[in-house]
């Protein structure tokens, strides 16, 4: 289990329509060494074949946007009129592929409150931009992750603590004396692999049971999920989302 580095609050990031267009340009112009006049069916083993790349020039990068507030909000990309609504039923976007190090700009909007997003993503990084209530205003938290635990036989479960009200956050398996995660700092994330089982979890802030248990549902091997702890009116609540990637 590892905790990822984070960049809290201030400087941020975005997406939607614009981001969708930022598909990876991995496999562009790289068949420069094609042999001229390839004779079909006449090549021997000694014949050379066109040189091709054995990988991309840069790893894939992704960004998603999460509504960590108690009310619906809208996400817009800079220079676009397209809007994405994030609410209790659909609190997150998928991970959109983006070009590494490109500028990603946009805005969370909720009633009269706005939070401008401006960020970039490193190669191989999965960035989550989480909208949070700041009194009557809106702010956001940006957390990046560079996972190395890809595994189709296990469930990959992350725990994001985006609640300043919840120090040393933990998730305990309901009905069992088992901690999935322990002592997670505020504005931090951690991830681990678990077996594909049906479980419910209870949030602990320090040693204090906080909020209601959360049923994680049928977790599927090979899939990736995140549990978010976000500030609620007088406490901290948790919810789970799939770490789905736009295909």
């Amino acid at each position, binding site marked *: 289990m590892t905790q990822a580095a984070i960049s809290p609050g201030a400087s941020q990031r975005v997406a939607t329509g614009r981001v969708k267009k930022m598909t*990876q340009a*991995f*496999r562009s112009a790289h*068949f420069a060494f*094609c042999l001229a006049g*390839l004779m*079909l*069916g006449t*090549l*021997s*083993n*000694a*014949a*050379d*074949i*066109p*040189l*091709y*790349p*054995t*990988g*991309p020039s*840069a*790893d*894939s*990068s*992704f960004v998603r946007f999460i509504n960590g507030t108690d009310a619906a909000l809208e996400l817009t990309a800079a220079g676009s009129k397209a809007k994405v609504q994030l609410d209790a039923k659909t609190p997150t976007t998928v991970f959109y*592929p983006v070009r590494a190090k490109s500028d990603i700009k946009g805005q969370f909007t909720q009633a009269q409150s706005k939070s401008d997003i401006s960020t970039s993503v490193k*190669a*191989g*990084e*999965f960035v989550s931009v989480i909208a949070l209530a700041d009194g009557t205003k809106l702010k956001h938290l940006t957390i990046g992750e560079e*996972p*190395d635990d*890809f*595994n*189709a*036989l296990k469930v990959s479960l992350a725990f994001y603590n985006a609640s300043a009200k919840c120090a040393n956050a933990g998730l305990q398996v309901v009905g069992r004396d088992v901690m999935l995660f322990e002592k997670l700092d505020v504005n931090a994330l951690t991830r681990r692999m678990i077996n594909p089982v049906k479980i419910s979890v209870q949030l602990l802030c320090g040693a204090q049971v906080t909020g209601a248990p959360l049923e994680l549902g049928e977790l599927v*091997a*090979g899939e990736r999920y995140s549990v978010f702890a976000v500030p609620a009116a007088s406490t901290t609540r948790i919810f789970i989302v799939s770490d789905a*990637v736009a*295909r």
Partner: protein
Amino acid sequence: MAAGTLAGIAMLVLGESHLSLPGYLMNPLYEDLTTQGATVHAIGACGATAGDWLKTVEVPCGADRFKGDTVFKGRAATTSPIKELIAKDKPNLVVIILGDTMASYDNESFPRAWAWQGITGLTKEIAAMQTPCVWVGPAWGTPGGKYFKNDKRVEFMAGFLEKNVAPCVFIDSLKFSKPGQWATVDGQHFNQAGYQAWSANITKALAALPMVQGLKK
């Protein structure tokens, strides 16, 4: 190997450059599989990665062999979306032979996110078509050459595939030979003896899989 170990199995075999030239893996593998009773449609696309089989992508060379007829292609070669291939052929087994095109041999860092995205994208589409699949990983090459293939990375690539190709069953080609045992022409592509050995081992490994045996008619 007894004759007919793959009797009645309709295979769609997809691969990279190894399946794209006549003296490479295409001919010996096609012949070994059909000798064992399988009906085979084999398609090679030079440089194609897993994600390239989700769409149509131009590649610098390729080959297509079905019902005995082989078409070796130059720059007119493309990949085809796996969904279309499965819908058209209706195979009862898909065999993917792919690894070298995704290993980033010339890059110190391995592109995990990209590889994971491509591999799982392909395996999910195959699973969505309710078609069993086998993924054959890369074989040892000889260090160096124009692709910079090296033992450490090919071993890592095989391990990455093994962890990520489910629900496809993984066949580890590294177990078929010792590093450097099969001579290559460029560090990555084998000579005829190497391809014949790889083909024989793939055929034998396929026939030994309980999942494949369950498909026999």
